[in-house]
């Protein structure tokens, strides 16, 4: 059995000049990656679209949280109180699944905005919603800067 000999009959498919191939690859890559380049804006864009479309009324707090998250990241944590209050109102009437996760997200937004009292209230709500998931997700490193201030357990 010949396992290593080169076959003289090997054929190459016809090829375009290398610079044409390179240019085409660059153009296609630019087109493919353009939306990816917009990455951080996509959360905001998708959330705004959902709000405009009145998407899934039972879950309308999701795009509000998405918008607030994007704004918090973009503005170093600062968020208008009115925006957070709106999320609080929505959360109090929320009937969807796994509220614990959304309360945790709200607590994170409040903490970054400097409202630690409100953050503690959100954390209490989260624990009441599902203590097991609450403890599980508090292990994440995102809580490390505020563990002592918020009285969160060490992981």
């Amino acid at each position: 059995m010949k396992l290593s000999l080169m076959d003289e009959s090997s054929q190459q498919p016809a090829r375009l000049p290398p610079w044409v191939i390179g240019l085409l690859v660059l153009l296609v890559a630019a087109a493919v990656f353009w939306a990816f380049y917009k990455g951080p804006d996509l959360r905001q864009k998708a959330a705004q679209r959902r709000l405009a479309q009145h998407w899934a009324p039972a879950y309308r707090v999701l795009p509000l949280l998405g918008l607030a998250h994007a704004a918090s990241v973009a503005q170093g944590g600062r968020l208008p109180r009115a925006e957070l209050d709106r999320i609080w109102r929505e959360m109090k009437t929320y009937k969807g699944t796994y509220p614990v996760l959304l309360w945790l997200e709200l607590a994170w937004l409040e903490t970054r905005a400097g409202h630690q009292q409100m953050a503690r209230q959100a954390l209490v709500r989260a624990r009441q919603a599902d203590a097991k998931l609450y403890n599980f997700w508090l292990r994440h490193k995102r809580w490390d800067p505020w563990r002592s201030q918020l009285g969160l357990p060490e992981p």
Partner: protein
Amino acid sequence: MSQSRSKTTGYWQPATLLAGFSWAVFAASRWALVMTTQPDGQVAVLWVWPPWWQTAAIGLGAWLLQLLVALWQRHWLSQQALERPQAFRRAYRAWWPSLALLLVPLMELCWPLYGYSTAPLALGREAWPLAALAVAGAVLLQTRLAAPELLRRGLGDHRFWLAPLVFLLTLGVFAGVGLRLNEVSGQTGYLMAGDEPSYLLSTHSLAVDRSLDLMDSILLRESSNFSDPARLVTGHGTWTQDRAWASNHRPGLPALLSPFYAWGLYTDLGPRKLATILVWLLGAWMVLEVFWLARFYTGREGPALLAAAASSLALPGLLYSNLLFPEMAAAAFSVAAFRRLRVAQPGQLGTLLLAGVLAAYLAWFHERFILLSVLLSVYALTRGHWRSFGGLMAFFLPCIVSAWLLSTYFSHLYGSPLPTAQVHAQGAYLNPRGAWEGLSGLWVDAGEGLLPYGPIWIAAVAGLIWLLRRRPGDGFWVMLMAVATYLTAGLYADWFGGINPPARYLVAAVPFLALGMAAGARWAPRRFMLVTVMLAVLTAAAAALVMHHPSAVYGHKVVLGQGLQFPLVENLLPAYVFANQQPAVNAQLGLIWLCLAGVVVLALQIDGQRFAPVSALICLLAAFLMVAGAAIAADRVGPGLTAYNNPAHRITLWERARIFPGQGMSWRLGPAGPQPQQALLELSLPPARYARPPAKPVRAGSSEVEVPALPAPKLFLWGQYLNLPPGRYQVFARLSSPYRGPQPVAWLDASQDKGRQVLTRSQVSGQELGKPVVLDFDLPQGARQFEVRLGTTGKYRLVLHSLSIVPQLETVKASTP
């Protein structure tokens, strides 16, 4: 001389007459309704025939058609470059294989001879179109072989437009599959299951946060972009060393998907839909590579097109072209790297660099593909690329860098350069239940195996051996790539891949198996194409049925048995994951069918291009007997085809009884005891099988269930999800309770569409409990997922003794002896 000539050229030759008779008997006997039963271990069979004139008309019609074909065949052969008498003699003799058809009704009627196994009878009832196809193909083949100068192989031309056409056609097919799946499931449909949402969550995190930490996406419930907002997707994750939450799935596929996914978010066209376009492209690229490589090996376009068709149109490739698992990407990358290594000359840097990048990236799809990367590296060396330092570095540098990055990634994730066994769903890589389960199940498991959904791959295995025989070096390496993928998957504890269509882990082997199709078409004997056509018909039928009912391939169901009502499959093939049989029984069933597949592969290795109709007849008879023998063995080893609790068998017979109103004579064969009509008219729905808590069996192993008194009303039995033929039915429920007063104690209803549409409903009071509770209803045309549901008012303890459903079939009643 003239007398001799008249003997050889007359129309009424024994061969043609017997062939016509065989076709007539075969065709006429297919329209009888046959019912079997085995309630007490004794098998009885009832044949109900259509009116005699109908049977005679079908038989005579088939005979007349055969005569017309024989006349045309004789005329055609006489026009070829043969002497006229010789041409006529050969034309008649080519009909000898038709005699094999007589074996089918013979096997059906002589079932007491092989111990009352009804498997050959069921084969004759279910698989007769395949027998007819095999015989017709054999006659056609012998007719072609009668004029040997007609047998020319295709020319080795290379049309430049064919490769782009293959790519575009494949892309069109995959897009069509995508449209169908989207039509069935919608953007956030129930088809998406298993690992797919986790891959998408990682993709989302990469596209939006540029991070593999999924925490933000989870807390913001951003899986709602591609899934039901009520569903929680956490990415099958794990805590990293620095307490981030990352997916246990590798980031290779999400990294490729993320630009397309981002376009989906940006344009609001649906991120999953847009991400799927990448998988279409990868799939079409894989098929194109298969076409190029097959044409390179065989020097012919016809075999290359056959290989491309198998890899794109047969399952599992057809379905995985639209699923966001890394399998299709791995298939494309591995075959593309393999072909480049094969065609590159030493020192051809660009080609080798691309091959190196593709081979290096494979490990980023999943660590099981590291084996393919290693094999590709060894292949690069054996191809002589070590002779050029530049070429060597072009291939190996990406591999070395990738290996270092991957070990760093694993160290970050798990604290060790390779994932530990704990990352696997069952805590270990190797199957604790033994290697045979996966190694046989990957091929022949009724729900998760490759062959029940794509039997054409048997021919591919036979073709791979031809590739090995004619081009040993290439054949060895192609087989090695396929075998490595198979072994890696077959030895794995979750060899079926989790919740996904079958056979997920063999998708990466598809391009290499498909090369076997091309080799078989190029070098195997002509019967290879006959077998391929037969298997292709089955494969296309399975693919069409799965496309018709795609959600059925999820959840480890025995689709061809339950979803599609094809009773032959149920109880004859192993069903490891469905777990309705003992592991030892499954292992034996797997061995039986793998042995049969092995015989097929061997039979396709024996060369034979001669005109030999008697040999063809003997081969067909042997093939029929072997298939029937395997079915009898499986029937005896397993729970049995006529197992009383096999709803698929029963429902198919109800369907038959509705379609074929037999009003002629009836034959009853077998012991006097069992009454087929009674047994078949009643389908038992054992309460213990469908009851849910708080209902529980009265005692261990009992089919009766009891429900205690409860503080509130509660539904306690549902979920049969039967697809019944339309018509009138009665449901019988036998209930008891200590309470015998006028108050309602339970309710039951009959519903379709998973309970969304109630057909009829009834309250049951304590006074009605002495006798069976009967529910009458009409099931409309097209009704799916029928179920009977029972609930308790909760006030009193309740026992459900039995539950059954009976169709109102006028035909069967009328023919009762």
